[in-house]
């Protein structure tokens, strides 16, 4: 599975980087990030593009989620 690290990046880079990765045709992507805003924005974006989003871990401020093609 491809891994994308967007921890600590300011808005809207987490979304843009997710978009770039998905546009390459990646079917399953693990995204590591930090902060609620980025988590919500990345999830919303992926769902809007028709992907499944599963949050796999959340420790303090850092989260991991997996984006899968439906």
């Amino acid at each position, binding site marked *: 599975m491809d891994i994308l690290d967007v921890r600590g990046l300011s808005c809207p*880079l987490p979304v843009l980087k997710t978009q770039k990765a998905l546009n390459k045709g990646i079917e399953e992507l693990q995204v590591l990030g930090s902060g609620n805003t980025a988590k919500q924005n990345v999830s919303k*974006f992926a769902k809007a593009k028709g992907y499944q989003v599963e949050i796999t871990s959340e420790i303090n401020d850092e989260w991991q989620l997996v984006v899968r093609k439906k």
Partner: protein
Amino acid sequence: MDREKLLMVITGVTIGALAVLLVALGNPANMGFCIACFLRDTAGGLGLHRASIVQYVRPELIGLAFGAFISAFSSKEFRSRGGSATFLRFVLGAFMMIGALVFLGCPLRDILRMGGGDLNAVVGLGGFLGGVLFGVFFLKKGFNFGAAKQEKGTSAGGYAFILIVLLIFGLLITGISFNAEAGGPLFFSKEGPGSMHAPLWVSLAAGLVVGFLAQKTRMCLSGGFRDFFLIRETGLLIAYGFIFLTVLIVNTYLGKFNLGFANQPIAHTNHLFNFLGLFLVGQTAVLLGGCPLRQIVLGSEGDMDAATTVLGMIFGAAISHNFMLAASAKGVTVFGQVAVVAGIIIVSLIAWAYREVDV
């Protein structure tokens, strides 16, 4: 309507209503809220610039920071973090302010001005939109100031901003004058926009409410357009739409709606520089991850880079008035015009230099 959209509508109506209320109680016209103008007044109140008509420590901003802090802290979103091109954020913050003070308002005041019938603000909005798209162009080319780091072991740095705000609040309510002969600091305008303000506690309370809601909703006009262009997400734009509608309706009801370009309160009719002023604000806002309002909110929730951006904005306000860059109702100075054009070029060069290759 889902809960999130409802929160956006409530936020929009509340901010719009409070903005009109603050004007009714004494704030300058179409300036119930204006982050750029209020930071400029606060810079003057602290004695950082000498424009005697725009000096007042605006309690709205103090309330805004407290409200955002309370919201972030209670929802466990307060995080001490920083270290992403901090000095350049200061520089970009200064340019964001220079652009705002040539237009005469931040994006929020732009919406309030439109709600008062000021068509110059429509020109400004066009510029803002252009600037946002220009900023997004750099993002798509790989612009990245790098990752901020969450502080390990201590959160002290994250609290510094809110403690400074608290200190300034203390100075405001105790009324200590440090140099009585000079009349301050704190300095308070006796005439002009700085002398016009709602009662302190009303301004503070209004700021608290707006700060709380802005933190909850991640209010940001540049973010609103960005979300719309990227993912057709309209939530933030709905909030701004309802600010506009509320202000428009109440102004019309009160007979304060005055459609036109000429003779608008604290505004000028230089179309090119109304456009370019907010263009520079839109461009820097996208690169910094948020408009002036959002920077204060982020600073209050522990983001030291955003706090530095706010200091950069205060610095930008001070040099805008000390170096005669700021516009006035009479128009835009030559210095202001040069500064905005130079700002767009310099910010573009910085953005270009900070692009990641191979992403």
